[in-house]
């Protein structure tokens, strides 16, 4: 099946700020594809190149090298055709604060080719979807941050795009609005829209994504389904045990002998904690408890930490995602 989005060797070097030397190479030759109907997340810390990538894909800036093909159209050769297929939800609240929510929607709707009764109907639907129909006539500058975010999303959905770009849509919103935005993304995907979602929140990528691309310093350092990424990087489950200090050494020796445990280390900061690594932490846990019980060593606390995208990023870069 032909992918909806194909990115080939995409590079972007910005012009130098003071006019001298080479500008910042924000995207360093990334290639990936996105299938129709999937939610694809670009995960990475601030400054990783996610927004630059989306800006190129949406025709805002030109690539230095490479190309993006969306629905068979090249963004460098036929940007208008690409823009008809996409809806963009930028990270910033890109609305006219002096105008009402409905007037903003109508303005951008007209520019997306809607008009007349179709535009009015679509505005009604979008206002209903973002839950602001009763406040549609109020000026944007009277809205809360969460409400503005919802209108910002609404503008990107007006013309029922095949593909929606959502660039960090939950930045700076309260938990309730965040939940509502994530549910909206899922609902849009269920309606058949393909979603490209960028975030630096690992939990959001985990919850939403069919596939994830992890970016760092302008490079795509990992790509695939969440489970595949974890397996690729070989990150194991961690079992953390808290024991009386006098039992730590004996417990370490005892647990190292268990076949389900690959490594046992004492916590460098807390001498009463042991870190156990296992390929399958949940299955190994009963063996661990039984062995300790037989040796009359009762743990005071047990915690299982399964690998996630944060662990993958940490494994690949040596840094936490929010560093």
């Amino acid at each position: 099946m032909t992918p909806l989005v194909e990115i080939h060797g995409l590079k972007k070097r910005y012009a130098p700020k003071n006019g001298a030397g080479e500008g910042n190479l924000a995207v360093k030759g990334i290639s990936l594809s996105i299938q129709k109907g999937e939610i694809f997340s670009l995960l990475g810390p601030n400054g990783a190149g996610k927004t630059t990538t989306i800006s190129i894909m949406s025709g805002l800036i030109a690539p230095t090298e490479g190309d993006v093909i969306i629905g068979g159209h090249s963004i460098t050769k036929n940007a208008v055709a690409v823009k008809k297929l996409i809806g963009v939800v930028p990270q910033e609240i890109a609305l006219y604060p002096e105008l009402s929510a409905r007037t903003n929607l109508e303005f951008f709707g007209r520019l997306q080719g809607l008009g007349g009764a179709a535009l009015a109907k679509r505005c009604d639907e979008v206002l209903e979807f973002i839950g602001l129909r009763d406040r549609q006539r109020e000026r944007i500058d009277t809205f809360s941050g969460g409400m503005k975010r919802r209108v910002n999303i609404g503008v990107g959905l007006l013309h029922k795009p095949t593909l929606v770009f959502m660039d960090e849509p939950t930045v700076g919103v309260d938990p309730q609005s965040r939940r509502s935005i994530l549910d909206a993304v899922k609902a849009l995907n269920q309606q058949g829209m393909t979603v490209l979602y960028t975030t630096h929140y690992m939990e959001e990528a985990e919850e939403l994504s069919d596939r994830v691309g992890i970016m760092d310093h302008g490079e795509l350092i990992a790509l695939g389904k969440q489970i595949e990424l974890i397996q690729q990087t070989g990150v194991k489950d961690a079992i953390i045990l808290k024991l009386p200090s006098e039992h730590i050494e004996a417990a370490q020796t005892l647990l190292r002998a268990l076949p389900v445990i690959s490594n046992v280390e004492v916590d460098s900061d807390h001498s009463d904690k042991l870190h156990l690594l296992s390929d399958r932490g949940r299955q190994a846990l009963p063996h661990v408890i039984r062995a300790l019980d037989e040796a009359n060593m009762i743990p005071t606390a047990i915690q299982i930490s399964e690998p996630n995208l944060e662990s993958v990023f940490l494994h690949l870069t040596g840094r936490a995602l929010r560093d």
Partner: protein
Amino acid sequence: MRNILTVAFTQIQVQLAERGTLITLFVVPIIMMIAIGTFSGQAGISTGRIDIIQGGDPLAQQFVLLLRQEGAKEVSGVRLFEVCDLSAPNLQSEVCALDGLTEAESAAAFATARVDERQSLAAVVLPATFSDDLQAGRKVEIGLKVQSGSPFAAQNVQRYVEAVNARISGAVIAAKAVTELANGDSAFYAGVYTAAEAAWATDPVRVTETTSTVTGGQSGSGFGQSVPGIGSMFVLINAAALAQIFVTERQRYTLQRLIMMPMPRSHILIGKLFGQFLLCLGSFVVMLGVGSLLGVQWGDPVALVVLVILFTLCATALGLAIAAVARSASQAASIGFLIPMVMAPLGGAWWPLEITPQAMQTVARFLSPITWSQEAFGTLIYYGGTLTDILPNLAALLIFTAVFFAFGAWRFRLD
């Protein structure tokens, strides 16, 4: 075309939603043009006073009468000057404002003080022996004190005084010469003098003064200068706001969102320019409408429409040129204010260009489009000019437009 109009009308809608924009577009310019027009109009049309001190002898009284006749002549519907005879303060008109002249006070000191304080154009002092000296053929000295620093007013007053003096002395000399030739008596002299005076009174040469288009009470009004001048200045200021609009939209990210819409970038730029053009044109039309209410008669309507459209187009192109160089909101605000505030006085928006030095007038023609628009407005308002008469001005405005637009198109980057 649909996208261009959508961008243009939404930009107008966004700007009109702000109270500050309405104030800059309409309120401030209208207040300024009324204030400046009223001030300059009063300065321009006020009838000056000439104070005269005389001894009450017949020829002196005749002198006052003739000078008063000269002063009563009107130019552009305004009397030239009022003659105030300080020798008979109670018989003078209210314009003379002689309430401050007491009997104890010296009329000469009073007249001198009024000239010094610029309350009267000049003081004329006839000698007490004016009639006797004139009839005896003796040299007569008429005292004339004029305002300092007003050479034109001084020349004019001197001219009128000399004209009256020539008329009286001419009649006296003629009567005296004929009486001597005919060996006539005093009655014969009086008869010849009266005949000579009467002949002179018919004014064998008469100057008929006419003014064009402006009639009646609006003649010489300062609004004909202030309305187009201040109007043009605010059109430049409002067009220059285009730079701030682009900067603000970049900061708000609405410009980037527009670029992401399925239309060519040129549609966004043209839409923005067209929106600002329409807004400036609307404000200019309102200001000219207020000018009409104030009594300004604009002359040839076709020429006026072409002039207003072309000047607004030129201002919009200037807005693009400023947007091309302004990199921040503060730069856009300062450059967008500074340039119109230099162009306006330089081009004669605040005062008639004719009163400025010739060198400045020459420089203004190269630096300020207002120079050309003000001259064209003056041609239409004061001289009844037509489209043909202002063609050079329209051509100059087109050249300014082309230069501003070419620079803007070369340097401006939408993203």
